[in-house]
């Protein structure tokens, strides 16, 4: 039987929203406080959902140790306590949480193969959250 497993992780990072194709004035008008030249930070809550058949041998969709290891190695070690604007992942890309969700989804699509990556969901604050599932429709 097919089940969906979701694990939640925390990432603390800073960013500044500034688009290279907008003027300084347009950037300020578009991003407001998020355009502060010195940046600011968030505690991002990342939820990774994977799916698959429940193994009769283990009762699991995938071993949580494998998922945790893959997310820590590929995502948390890469983004936690970092300034997102300085990372190669965001060269030419505004580090909005929309883009962060896409970047993390694409990293995990390559870096985790023990179950099907269903989607990633990121809470930037308690008020804002973003979900990305690539081109796939996902279950609500």
């Amino acid at each position: 039987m097919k089940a969906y497993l979701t694990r939640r992780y925390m990432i603390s990072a800073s960013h500044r929203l500034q688009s290279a194709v907008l003027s300084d004035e347009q950037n300020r008008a578009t991003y407001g406080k998020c355009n502060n030249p010195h940046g600011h930070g968030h505690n991002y809550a990342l939820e990774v959902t994977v799916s698959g058949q429940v193994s009769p041998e283990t009762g699991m969709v995938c071993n949580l140790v494998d998922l945790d290891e893959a997310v820590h190695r590929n995502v948390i070690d890469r983004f936690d306590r970092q300034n997102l604007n300085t990372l190669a992942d965001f060269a030419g890309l505004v580090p909005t949480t929309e883009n962060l969700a896409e970047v993390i989804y694409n990293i995990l699509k390559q870096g985790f193969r023990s179950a099907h990556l269903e989607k990633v969901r990121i809470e930037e604050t308690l008020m804002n959250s973003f979900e990305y599932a690539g081109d796939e429709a996902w279950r609500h």
Partner: protein
Amino acid sequence: MIYLTRKCEFSASHYYHNPQWNDEENRRVFGKCANLNGHGHNYTLEVTVKGEIDPVTGFVVDLKELKDLLNHEVVEAMDHRHLNKEVPEFASTMPTSENIAIAIWQRLDQKLKVAKLHRVRLYELPDLFVDYYGEA
């Protein structure tokens, strides 16, 4: 179609052990969860049902009926119990969150009279949950 979610909590103990494997293999795969003395969790269950709104009552489901069903099928059966030893489904399957969600789905699905079961979401920890939608 409208969706309604009801929450309940239960606290239970369990361990993971595949009798076809030796102790070493069980420890390798299940880690600390293979301790045969068991350990416990505070589980939070969210059950989502769906259906059309009854024009007379304005309900998609009678919440009292749903609450009684959850109390009878889940809380009375699993709260403050050892899942491996006291819940029949886990005499032969491992009481992982995946299998507990499936067992709860099977317990509830046949007994819902009006609304249709949409999703069983079971939190084992605040940072770990499983969803089951009745899929094969």
